[in-house]
């Protein structure tokens, strides 16, 4: 039942917020998001670390067709639900010094987005998943296109059409899977994801199902070469929308890989997994190299995010327990880091009116707080030990190494390159002589500090004691490995 509340409550709150006016909107949105965080936190703490689905609900939806409105939290979704609950209030709080036109619509769209995201991560019915997967796109599209930069209309439209195009193939695959399921007591077929797991599909069917799902998720993440929408969209969107996109929405893709492709099409992964890993590794290196060349902070972070997500995809397709565990933890860690990075870029932009690195410099002189927080988040991003990035990336790289030494080696460049572009960004913006724009740079306000304090708390928590998070995902991952394991056996 808690899951139902987690999905419906943000949507209801959003509808209420539409009635608010003026300054109170922000506060109302923050309160609403904090309540959701409390619920998500409760779910996380109360989650029994086993492979079962908990806090769930199950109602008939298209009863006679066997399509059900059912959702629940299991080990694979629990961290993502926590991440969604955690990031949305922080993103709301990060906007407290900004004034967006028509604030009630702005914050309502953010909360609608949250409802859809929680729905994606918890849905247990294939079509419900699809519904939320698409529904999440509408609020973010409006957020980006209404409050974005100059070129927003064309850029966000490309993003929208691109992602919808991908997910339509997923819909075809879902319908196909649905028709393969055996009749249940009440309906001719079933759309439950667990029933999809039990299907015995031919290798040929698995191959095309792999691609139908992979294209949908690869566009969402994005994996090379499906990434062309991403940098522009991240740059043109208002920062809160970028945070939602990079912090949470991107994880829908990685989550989909784990939830659908690995267990449903293991033979497809056997045939095409290597291609996917290679594409991901190309993305890692390609994204890093482009990031090194960027002058615009937001664009640099966008490419770094593209590079990091490549590693997650590679880890998932390594089909190892460590790789999957790493992907799950890294999703949480990356969400925290990328939101922090975009927030830094936004703070600098709001104070200096520029994101160009060569127009910045010397910010450290007046901003001790920002410097420290920026540094910590940055170290998390470059995967320094004892920060959150280290745990995830280490596990992921271990997984990729187990899969293939050479690919693991290539993927390992992410850490070196990451340090290069991140430190370069830090250096260019924070150190050196002050420019005319950065002379009167003021340090963090109270609300900004709180955002960073919360983020940094998680950077260290995950970095120092990852056991809290790994232990909840482990049983589910082990359970998932069964489907992958049986497939490799049957291949021989």
């Amino acid at each position: 039942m808690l899951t139902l509340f987690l999905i419906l409550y943000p949507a209801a709150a959003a509808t209420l917020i539409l009635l608010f006016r003026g300054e109170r909107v922000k506060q109302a949105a923050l309160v609403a998001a904090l309540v959701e965080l409390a619920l998500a936190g409760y779910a996380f703490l109360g989650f029994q670390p086993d492979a079962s689905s908990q806090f769930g609900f199950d109602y008939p939806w298209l009863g006679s067709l066997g399509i059900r409105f059912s959702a629940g939290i299991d080990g694979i979704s629990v961290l993502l639900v926590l991440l969604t609950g955690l990031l949305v209030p922080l993103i709301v709080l990060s906007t407290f010094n900004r004034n967006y036109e028509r604030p009630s619509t702005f914050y309502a769209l953010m909360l609608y987005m949250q409802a859809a995201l929680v729905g994606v991560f918890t849905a247990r019915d294939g079509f419900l998943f699809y519904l939320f997967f698409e529904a999440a796109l509408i609020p973010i599209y409006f957020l980006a296109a209404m409050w974005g930069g100059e070129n927003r209309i064309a850029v966000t439209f490309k993003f929208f059409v691109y992602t919808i195009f991908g997910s339509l193939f997923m819909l075809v695959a879902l319908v196909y899977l649905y028709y393969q399921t055996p009749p249940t007591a009440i309906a001719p077929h079933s759309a439950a994801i667990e029933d999809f797991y039990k299907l015995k599909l031919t290798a040929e069917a698995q191959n095309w199902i792999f691609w139908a799902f992979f294209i949908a998720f690869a566009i969402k993440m994005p994996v090379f070469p499906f990434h062309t929408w991403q940098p522009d969209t991240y740059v043109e969107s208002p920062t809160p929308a970028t945070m939602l996109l990079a912090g949470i929405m991107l994880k829908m893709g990685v989550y989909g890989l784990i939830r659908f492709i690995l267990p449903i099409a293991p033979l497809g992964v056997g045939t095409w997994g290597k291609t996917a890993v290679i594409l991901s590794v190309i993305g890692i290196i390609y994204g890093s190299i482009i990031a090194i060349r960027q002058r615009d902070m937001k664009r640099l972070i966008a490419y770094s995010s593209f590079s990091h997500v490549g590693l997650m995809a590679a880890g998932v397709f390594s089909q190892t327990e460590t790789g999957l565990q790493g992907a799950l933890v890294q999703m949480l860690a990356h969400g925290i880091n990328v939101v922090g990075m975009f927030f830094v870029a936004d703070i600098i932009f709001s104070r200096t009116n520029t994101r160009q690195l060569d127009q910045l410099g010397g910010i450290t002189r007046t901003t001790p707080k920002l410097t420290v927080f920026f540094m910590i988040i940055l170290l998390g991003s470059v995967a320094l030990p004892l920060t959150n990035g280290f745990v995830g990336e280490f596990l992921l790289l271990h997984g990729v190494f187990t899969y293939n030494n050479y690919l693991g080696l290539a993927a390992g460049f992410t850490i070196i390159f990451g340090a290069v572009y991140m430190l370069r960004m830090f250096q260019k913006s924070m150190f050196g002589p002050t420019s005319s724009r950065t002379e009167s740079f003021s340090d963090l306000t109270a609300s900004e500090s709180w955002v960073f304090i919360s983020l940094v708390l998680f950077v260290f928590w995950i970095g120092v004691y990852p056991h809290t998070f790994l232990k909840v995902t482990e049983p589910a991952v082990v359970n998932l490995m069964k489907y992958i394991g049986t497939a490799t056996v049957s291949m021989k």
Partner: protein
Amino acid sequence: MLPIVLLSVFGIVLLFLGFMKSKAILLPATLLFLVITLAVNFLDWNKSYLYFNDMLRTSNLSMVFTAIVLGSAFMVVALSSRFMEEESAQPAEYYGLMLFSLVGALMMIGFENLIMLFVGVEILSVAMYVLTGSDKRNLRSNEAALKYFLMGAFATGIMLFGMALLYGATGSFTLAGVGSGANPQQGISLLTASGMLMLLIGLLFKVSAAPFHFWTPDVYDGAPTIFTAFMSTVVKTAGFAALFKLLSVSFAGLYPWWWTLLAIITALTLVAGNITAVYQNSFKRMMAYSSISHAGYLLIGLAALGTQTKQAIVFYSLAYSVATIAAFGVLLLVARQRATQTFTSEGVMSENFDAFNGLARQNPLLGFAMAVSMLSLAGIPLTAGFWGKFYMFSTAVERGQIWLLVVAVLMSTVGIYYYFRVIIAMYFRDGATEPIQVAPFYRYVLLAATILTLGLGIAPGLLQGLF
């Protein structure tokens, strides 16, 4: 078959009401007549009767189709308050003709005999020819009416020829008789094949399937917007009800012969409608091509005739009709408002995409209603249109027609492109205008359409127990 009788009588009553000085009574009277007919329609619920010497049959399915057609007509009439303001308008005749054309539509839905189908198509079409040309001082309206009439008459001729051939081949005009006469056991005879083909061509023309769609853009564009809305919903729903009945009763046994042909026509329709719609600058013309493309989606269900088809067609026609009427309703208001500001070179009011610029800021409700109907037509989840497409795609998967499905999926993506042009114009572009005044009743109709679209999008099961 009380609804047919009632509608005919009401149509005549309306013509007489036109003699009264005050024309204000016509609109509420028409709405009342439609509500009465709609209520009477359900009297035969769960029973199946044959009427008029076995010429017509009522079934739950026919009653649901009738309800969709009458409901669409109700909404169109409710949005037609503008008639009253025009000097040269003849509202009594318009409403009367609309009711008469509904009689034709009902016959197409309930026919049991091919002759009845022909009579229904003719009644529907003749009324529509007149309504298309009802803006008689407008050159384009006249052009549209003439084109529609000439092409339509030609198509009905082909259809009638097809029926004659079928009669020659099977010795029967009844659905069941044609079905058993065209027994596929000993192969399909040339006479049956050509008869069936011609009959189908006639009906495919009416629902504007490619390559018989060339009349559609000009007619939809030239006709007064309110009748375009009527045409693109009522005629299409009735046409598909008739096609479904023919294919599933008479020609079900011949499926292996016609499905490839129909699948090719479906793919052509999808491609022609969607691709051409992208290049339109006029919203109304875009809607014309969009209606062609939706004919394509509906045809998927027929080309993949199966257990799901009935449900798919009912759901799709309902979702499509509601969204289309809401879209045209908003267009009516916007075009009238902009007409006072910007005239195009031809002196017609602007129905281009630009006319919608900034609409959502000035009129949030209009913007929202339009956005929801565009999302529904584009098939985005949480709207009725999504489930319509879902059912259609399901039928194709059930039959294993994957190539058709791939075409449909690709074309849905293209569809997003042109539907979102409206949303982009309304929400993200600036248009310096004062808000449009919307009459309360008008607002309720748009609101009802929006709620219906979203409601069916969230709980598509609502419609399931119905037939």
